[in-house]
């Protein structure tokens, strides 16, 4: 682990966040947040609801802008990018939303084709169909291709949401509460899928969650966000081997000792 960290210390992180501040009105959500994510690494950001976890990844994807501080993704400062450059950067970022955000009026096939046909116009029909089949097979839902999102279960919607991001072959995956609202078995399936995506698509990921099972199963590294700042960072065991009462209570609440 120590060697691994030293190696990572030499390479440039794919996501570099420095002194990030974000507030909504008088509510300071993020306060001096700094984080590095390295290539091929799954970093879990843990924290209670309303602590700014989702805000953090929305800033990374350029959906929100920070009050101060910097966010560099693949060497590009997100807040300084023009519209065109931001669109290009977003092609390298996959974002899995908490409620999947599938387009209600489109079938699963149309949902998956949507980003592809608009961003890779040179592709032929055969290539588009092949890409759709590939990502659907990767998430294990090839049979749902002609179904509407309303006909899918919560777990299936999550997996189709992940498939839609994978179709553009992103280098970075951002997962917003991937296991929220799912039963324990489906949670395990989603955790396994996140790990498979990392291996098969060679992605670096930030996983936002308050689910410790998900954090333990998917995270190479865990960062604990408390009161707008990272209270502790390390492996799962390192983070929860803590004397901080706030971290202890978070652990106890999840695992009910």
């Amino acid at each position, binding site marked *: 682990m120590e060697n691994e960290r030293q190696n990572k210390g030499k390479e440039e992180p794919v996501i570099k966040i420095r002194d990030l501040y974000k507030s909504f009105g008088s509510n300071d959500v993020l306060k001096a947040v700094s984080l590095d994510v390295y290539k091929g690494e799954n970093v879990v950001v843990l924290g209670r609801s309303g602590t700014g976890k989702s805000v953090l990844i929305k800033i990374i994807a350029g959906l929100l802008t920070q009050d101060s501080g910097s966010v560099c993704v693949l060497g590009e400062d997100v807040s300084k990018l023009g519209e065109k450059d931001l*669109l290009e950067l*977003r*092609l390298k970022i996959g*974002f899995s939303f908490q409620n999947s*955000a599938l*387009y209600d009026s489109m079938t699963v096939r149309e949902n998956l084709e949507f980003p592809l046909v*608009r*961003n890779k116009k040179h592709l032929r029909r055969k290539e588009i169909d092949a890409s759709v089949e590939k990502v659907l097979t990767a998430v294990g839902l090839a049979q749902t291709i002609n179904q509407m999102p309303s006909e899918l279960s919560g777990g299936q919607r999550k997996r189709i949401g992940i498939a839609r991001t994978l179709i*553009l072959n992103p280098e970075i995956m951002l997962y917003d509460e991937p296991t929220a609202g799912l039963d324990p078995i489906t949670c395990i399936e989603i955790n396994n899928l996140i790990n498979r995506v990392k291996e098969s698509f060679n992605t670096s990921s930030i996983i936002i969650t308050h689910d410790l099972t998900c954090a333990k199963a998917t995270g190479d590294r865990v960062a604990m966000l408390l009161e707008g700042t990272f209270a502790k960072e390390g492996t799962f065991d390192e983070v929860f081997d803590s004397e901080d009462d706030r971290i202890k209570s978070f652990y106890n609440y999840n695992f009910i000792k």
Partner: protein
Amino acid sequence: MSVKQGREFIVSKGFDSFFIDLNSAVKFNLRFFKELFLPPYEGREIIKQCYEIGWKSLPLISLTGFITGLVFTKQSRPSLAEFGATSWLPSLVAIAIIKALAPLVTALIAAGKVGSNIGAEIGSMRVTEQIDAMEVSAVNPFKFLVVSRVIATTVMIPILMCYTGCVAMLGSYINVHTNEMTSFVAFFEQAFSKISFLDIFSSLTKAVVYGYTIGIVGCYQGYNASQGTEGVGKAANASVVVSMFLIFVEEILIVQITNSIRG
């Protein structure tokens, strides 16, 4: 400068937010015209929206137009009969329908049906993060959702207005024919004898302006919907109310301009 709940306002919260909203609405309109001419062009989405807005409004528009023409003729007859001027009915009805009723009835029906639909659809996409999902997929949601819908309403409302006018005149003809046994050709010859090119041009201009208003207001309200299902309801409601208000303001302005041109 007054201070309320720790926030500073220039005059009052309501006054300030009105101008903030106005500024945001103006920017939204300017963005529409900027994006209108820039690629990519969402041709398929525009055709789909034209179908949704035009074709699916036909039953309601047909019924309303027919009843408007029929009832207007029926109500006008006693007044004209007092002066023995029932032969003027076709001209009177044509002037009323073509110059005022067809554009206004079409616009008000469309504001209720199409405007609320656009506000609710885009609003629900906003609150369920579907618009954010488009953005992170490197797709321009403004181009795909807003530009296509505003073009569709701007194109389809004038077509629907022409259709409403035809159906209303047909309703009027049925009433006149039943009472006065006027022939089809004689009815329409007399009806259009008092209609000028400026009347038709003015009505088409109104319909284009109303179409744009219904589309842009619905999209603006939906695009800026706040979080939650309550926000979707408010967006749908505001789409109808604001569209109708603007349609009446535009009606007054266009009538004034047309009359000043006519001299």
